[in-house]
């Protein structure tokens, strides 16, 4: 029987627990980038700037939660950006051209997002198509539908009522950011605390084995694709509320950034590894980089180089910390 002293010696320290956490690498990278930005730029830590970063993060953050959930399953959906854009445009048309109350338009647009996500999931599961290849096609269809509906012209006259969802603040925090936090909490609960979450990781690790264990693989894929479509639609709607117009360009930058954010956050593209929280940390790193290159007045011709280099540094830092953990655990 171990003595108290031995037990104390074996008890892991708080630092050790932190280091062993798979999110430690990306969290430390985020903290370091945040601290350096605060030290170098006197404007970085101002309340207004924090609000700008949080509001900007919210939209791509919602799509990142959607994409990371799919990536845990071992799937990728390249049409999430255009689903967001199409649902934003349709919500604008419902509010402005059909004269529907914004609450009704919002619900209908969310349902459209779910339907579009379901279509992706249905084609992947029923035809056995690779989600990456399939969604290149559906992204083209949804993006084309935006141009057909708008002729490339933004829909203006969005009701003031809905604009609070994009521009408003509650307790000093931007409303879209608060919505993203609520969605993140739900996604974390689903992935970490429910059987469905465990099934998602099992499918991502080995779909054939999961099927043999009796897990309804296709049903869960369908559910997650539908959930991802709804979150993208929500991001599109919030962007319409923020801009006060339904822009045909909404969602164009939500294709690669969420995948990059998820990978930075430790979500494996091969499935079964990572969590939406890590992906949001990754999205936070990207949001801060986008902010500081403006604060520092980086030349637009150097912005790609600078932001790319910081992302490579963040990923390298994460990889090194994982290697250290593996060695430490061996």
């Amino acid at each position, binding site marked *: 029987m171990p003595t108290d002293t031995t037990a104390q010696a074996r008890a892991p320290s708080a630092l050790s627990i932190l280091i062993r956490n798979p999110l430690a690498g990306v969290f430390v990278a985020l903290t370091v980038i945040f601290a350096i930005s605060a030290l170098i730029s006197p404007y970085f830590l101002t309340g207004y700037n924090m609000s700008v970063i949080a509001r900007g993060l919210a939209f791509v953050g919602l799509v990142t939660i959607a994409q990371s959930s799919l990536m845990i399953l071992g799937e990728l959906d390249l049409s999430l950006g255009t689903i967001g854009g199409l649902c934003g445009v349709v919500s604008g048309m419902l509010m402005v051209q059909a004269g529907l109350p914004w609450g009704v338009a919002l619900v209908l647009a969310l349902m459209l997002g779910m339907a579009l996500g379901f279509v992706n999931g249905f084609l992947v599961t029923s035809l056995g198509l690779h989600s990456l290849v399939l969604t290149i096609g559906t992204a083209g269809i949804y993006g084309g539908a935006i141009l057909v509906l708008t002729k*490339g012209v933004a829909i203006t006259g969005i009701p003031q009522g809905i604009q609070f969802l994009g521009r408003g603040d509650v307790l000093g925090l931007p409303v879209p950011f608060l919505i993203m936090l609520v969605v993140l909490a739900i996604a974390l609960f689903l992935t970490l605390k429910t059987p469905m979450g465990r099934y998602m990781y099992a499918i991502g690790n080995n779909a054939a084995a999961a099927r043999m264990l009796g897990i309804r693989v296709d049903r869960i894929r369908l559910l997650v694709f539908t959930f991802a479509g709804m979150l993208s639609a929500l991001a599109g709607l919030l962007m319409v509320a923020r801009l006060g*117009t339904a822009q045909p360009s909404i969602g164009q930058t939500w294709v690669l950034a969420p995948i990059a954010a998820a990978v930075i956050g430790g979500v494996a593209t091969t499935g079964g590894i990572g969590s939406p929280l890590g992906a949001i940390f990754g999205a936070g790193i990207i949001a801060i980089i986008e902010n500081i290159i403006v604060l520092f007045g980086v030349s*637009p011709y150097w912005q790609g180089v600078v932001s790319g280099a910081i992302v490579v540094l963040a990923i390298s830092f994460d990889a090194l910390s994982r290697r250290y953990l593996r060695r430490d655990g061996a």
Partner: protein
Amino acid sequence: MRKLATMLAGVAIAMPLAAAAQDAAGTAKKDSYRFLIVPKVVHPWFDKVNDGAQMAAEALQAQTGADIEIVYSAPQTADVVQQVQIVESAISTRPDGIAIDLLDPSGNRGSLEAAQGQDIPLVIFDSVPPEGMDIPYIGSDFCEQAKIASRRLVEVLGGEGEVAIMMGVPTAPNHSIRAECHREVFAEHEGITVVAEGIDNDSIEIAQQQAAAIMQANPDLKGWVASDAAGPIGIGQAIVEAGKEDQVTLVGLDNLPEMLDMIRSGVADSSSASQPELQGYWSVMLLWAQATGAPVPDYLDTGNAFLTKDNVDG
């Protein structure tokens, strides 16, 4: 005692005069100014705007002794969401002024209101302010610029033939105004038929693809006009690739180096050019004037130039 009374009276008179002098328009002074230039997108036309802005900074620095810094911050793509993000981040740095070419007045309104809320002077160039917002703006008469080009095309075609319009970024007001004015001119001539309109989103590559497809679908097409600077360059490339230099007339827009080369080589007939350097120059001048408290005009017209083979190197 009498002396003291005279002195007090003198001070009493001088104080309001001094106060008036301090409050006089255009007399507020700082040792340094930082102005932000936000174009629609990374693009050579806007590099010329930036060149003009740098010239104005040098001129002001030489004349006033103040340090003038120009920060040029461009969205990587012509996306209003990115542009709004740049402006909002820039507001955090408390610049002395922001000059911006709006991608979409409605979409940009929120960020402009945020800047005004923090008393940051604004100037809009190559675009028009959102409806109801009191912001000075600089540009050429976009409609007149387009009409110069489309009238020239009608003249070269002898008032007859099929023509096409490249629209640029449809949500950008200057591009949509130009496209509409092209349509107005062509509608005045019964012999002219607009058979196609393309959208190039201010990208030479997309313009080339669109123009090639439109010329394939309309083999009798006789002429092109554009609504943005990238458009005519892409159209010119498509004309050369299709070997239609002698069949299709291109009247371009603006004065990018590729456009001037096409006029010299005969691929393009001519170009109706706005003057980006002047827009950048006067954007900085108007921002500086506002920062000093001086009144500025609501609108400043930098004019258009019509470029042909005869005057392109003049």
